[in-house]
Structure formats: C-alpha cells, structure tokens
C-alpha cells in the first residue's frame, strides 16, 4: 500500500500507539506468566513446595511416575484418563449433535431460531451451576442412579456420583452445545442437489448420508471437535465436582500441586504436558482440515 502522507517515523508512532497497549498487556500478563511456568518445571522442589535452584528434570521424572519410593503408574493413569474422557466426550457429542442439527434444520424456518435458543440457553448458564445440577441428578436413590444399579454398573444404594460415569455425563452435557452449533451451521447450508444426486444413483439411505450429506458437514464437524475436545481434556470444574479421587483428571492434578501439598515444579511440568497434548492435537487438526479442504475449521 502506498502512503502519501506521513514519514516512517510517524507511522511507527501510530503503530505503537494503536497496538502498543494491547500487545504490551498481553506480553506482560500472559506471555511472561507462561514462560515463567515453563521455567518452574526445571527447578527443584523445595522443602515447602516452593521451587528452588538447581535446575533439574526431576519434575518430569515424577510425571513419568518415578519418585523416591520407586515407580507408580498414578500420574500416567491421570493423563490417560483425561485423554479417554476427552475422546468419549467428543464421540458422544458428535452422535447427539447430528440428529439435533438435522432436526433443527428440518423444521419450518420460523421455529428454527426458537430451537437454536433451546440449545444455546443452557450453555449460557454458568458452568458451576450446570455441573452442580448433575450432583443432584446422579445422587443415590435418584432414577438415574437406580437405573445404573439395575444395569449392574454400580453397587446397590450407591449413587452415580462421584464416579467416572458422572464426569463423562457432566462433560458431555457441558460441551454438547459447542458441537451442535457448528454442525448445524454446516447442515443449514447443505447443498441438497448433491444429496438428490446420490439418491438418483439408487444409493440406500446410509450411503446417501455417507456420500451425499456427511462430506458437506466436515467443516462444522472439525470446528466442533476442536471446541469440545480441547476444553474437555483440560476440564477442571466437572471432574472436581462430579469425580472422586479415582476419577481425577489432569486439570485437577495440576491444581492440587498449587494448593494443598504444593509442589510447583511438578505442577509446572504437568502443565507443559497438558499444553504439549493440546498443541499436538491442534497441529494434527490443522493438517487434517487442510487436507480435507475444510476452510472454516481453520481456527489456527
């Protein structure tokens, strides 16, 4: 772009004046703390949980399960459980979101806004409240707990909460709207001519869906997976309220290293592990969405 007025000096001044405050704020209050956490992971755990010199990789050994008592799988189990829970949540929300998206797209136009609102309003309610509601629904002697007892999932007179099941339920509930909305956006502008074409070729209804409908919803699906999988993996509120010690996820393990029985270097090392998984996941997604040419899913 050619600028007719202003020297490069005034341009630089203007640039500083406009982006300066925001960039400075984020650098000081967001990048610095993140870098600090990265450094803490390489320090030694002091007598009161405070990080001290010298630099070590002890914290990472502890993540892998090694401590002064030998090796135990506890930490790796927590990481594995977080990955599994994120996986379950993503799959379950996809399976529930498709029918909802098609249902909303299939009603008359004037009702669609109302149905969308029905999906959105619960997600506007605070996450603490939404999760706390499930504490009551999954308590002992409630219909859902009784059902679980009948199915042999849990012993008699026990509730579903706290448990891994409760955490799954809470995660699916909390993140479902973030899957429905992007998939709905794709379904709404579906090109039905392509669908009719598959039908004209005598495809059965499954093949119509698989070859005619599904490929068109991939951008929405990918966006939904990012919006659900990453927060579910890093969840804190849901496992804290609905899980017990045996349902702990990575977010809770990290938090506990900074509050009760603090061990900051260990907590910081776990943080790096969580970030690593998050960014690896995003990178895989970026490649996948480029390959599938799903422009809208390009969040990065």
């Amino acid at each position: 772009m050619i600028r007719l007025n202003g020297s490069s000096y005034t341009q630089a001044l203007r640039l500083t004046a406009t982006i300066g405050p925001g960039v400075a704020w984020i650098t000081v209050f967001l990048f610095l703390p993140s870098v600090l956490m990265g450094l803490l992971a390489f320090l030694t755990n002091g007598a009161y949980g405070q990080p001290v010199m010298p630099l070590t990789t002890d914290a990472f050994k502890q993540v892998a399960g090694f401590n002064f008592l030998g090796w135990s799988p506890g930490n790796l189990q927590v990481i594995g459980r977080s990955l599994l829970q994120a996986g379950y949540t993503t799959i379950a929300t996809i399976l529930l979101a498709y029918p909802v998206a098609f249902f909303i797209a299939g009603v008359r136009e004037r009702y669609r806004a109302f149905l969308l609102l029905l999906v959105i309003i619960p997600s506007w309610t605070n996450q603490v409240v939404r999760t706390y509601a499930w504490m009551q629904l999954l308590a002992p002697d409630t219909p859902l707990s009784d059902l679980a007892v009948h199915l042999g999932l849990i012993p008699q007179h026990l509730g579903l909460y706290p448990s891994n099941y409760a955490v799954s339920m809470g995660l699916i509930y909390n993140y479902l709207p973030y899957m429905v909305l992007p998939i709905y956006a794709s379904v709404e502008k579906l090109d039905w001519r392509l669908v009719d074409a598959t039908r004209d070729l005598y495809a059965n209804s499954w093949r119509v869906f698989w070859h005619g409908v599904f490929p068109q919803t991939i951008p929405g699906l990918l966006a939904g997976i990012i919006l659900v999988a990453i927060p579910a993996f890093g969840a804190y509120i849901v496992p804290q309220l609905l899980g017990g010690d045996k349902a702990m996820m990575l977010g809770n393990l990290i938090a506990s290293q900074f509050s009760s029985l603090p061990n900051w270097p260990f907590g910081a090392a776990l943080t790096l592990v969580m970030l690593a998984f998050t960014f690896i996941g995003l990178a895989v997604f970026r490649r996948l969405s480029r390959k599938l040419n799903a422009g809208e899913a390009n969040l990065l």
Partner: protein
Amino acid sequence: MRSGIAKKISNAVALATLGFLWMPLVVVVAFSFEPEMAAVHLTGFTLDWYGKVLEGGGMLNALFKSLELGLTSALIGTLFGAFLAVGLHKYRGRGFAVLALIVYLPIVMPDVIYGISQMVFFNYLKQFIGWPNAGLLTMGIAHISFQIPYVALIVYARLVGLDRDLVNAAADLYASPLKSIYAFWIPVLRPALIASFLLAFTLSLDDFVISFFTSGPGSVTLPIYIWGSIAKHGVTPETNAIASLLIGAVLLVALIQTYLSARRVGHLAPTSN
C-alpha cells in the same frame, strides 16, 4: 435419511437430547421450592429459600463484585482490543502472524493453565515488587488479558468489511488523533464495539476457573460464591435458589434479546453496509 425409520430414530434422539439439555435446569429450579433439606423427591412448595438467599447478603455482595469486575474489565478490554484491531488492520503483513498468535493463545489454552500461571506470576510479582495484592485487581488483570483477543477478533472482522479508501481518507484529512477517533472510528465501529463490550462482560461474568485462581480474600464473585457454598454445605435448597435466580436472569436476557432482534428485523431494512 429424509424418509423412513432412520429419520424417526434421528428425530427421537434429537428430542431426547433437547430434553437432556434442559433436565438439569428444570431439576434445580424445582428443588429450589422444596421445603425439606436433602430431599430426593419433591414433597412440597416454599419460597423460604429465596428469602434466605436475599436476606443473607452474601449473594448480593458477590453479585455486585461480579458486576464491578465485569464492567471494569470489559471497558478496558474493549479499549485495548479495539486499538489492537485497528493497528493490525492498518499495518498488515508481519503484524498478521503476531495477531494470530495473540488472538489464539488465550482461546486455545486450557483455563486451568491460564489461571494457575497468572496466580504464580502475581505471587512472584508481589514478592519482588510488593504489587499487586490478590483480589479484584489481579482478577481484573487476568480477565482483561483474555478479553483483548476476543474484542480484537470482532473489531477486526468489522474493519475487514469496511471500505479501505474510507479508512485511508480519515487518515488523510489531517484530523488530530483524538478528533479522528471521535468523529470517525467510534461511529463506524459502534456496532462492533457494543458487541465486543457485551461479549467481554459476559465472558467475565461467566468465568469461574481463572477467577478462582487469581482471586483473593474479599473478592468473591458469584460463581466463586456458589462454588464455596457447594464445598461447605454440599447440595442444598439454598444453593438451588441461587442457581435458579441465575437461570432466571439468563432466560430474561435471552427473551429481551430475541424481542429486540425480532423488532429490528420487523421495522428496519437490512443495513446497507
């Protein structure tokens, strides 16, 4: 898919899922009227718990703290975010990579990490330079950091839709910076600024995890208050009453918004820009 049994099953799943989304909210509201503590089935009807919540004062106090934090942080976040968007729009090129990084880091970073790294950072700052004290100040700083990217995204989207010549003309007319802000940027960006401010405010009100880790004594916001009362007393009708009031507030806002947008569509032609 459009015909036959597959469609019927799909629709049944859809309706069940909508029910699933509303069931917890309905249960919370229903049990807020339940007279017995720790009841599994509804046995009666009372408004006592609402009275207790409102006379206790703790909740109202927390609400005011939430509003104070939300309004102040949203104001500053919108200001910084809007400036950031304008600057990066003008000076495309290398700045773009920076925008992507700044915009996406807080959005993709899990909030536990975000909250705890802020807490640790403030802790060290306090130790070395004696500032800041944990409380509304540290919470506000953390909230502004996550609001700036969202605001920048919204304002940037609006700027991309604007005519570039219009933006350049404003710069070429030798207006003083203040004058151009007042006479050009604010009117042009008004819808985006209002939307950004409301989003920033909502993000702040809604946030629990980041607030929780950066809070201090005397800075109990509404989600932290609810969290504390669950930790102390477990599930009680009183907490149900607080939660119901929140659900009611959300419904009210949704209704007002629907009404306003319906009216806009009805009486005004689609905007030309």
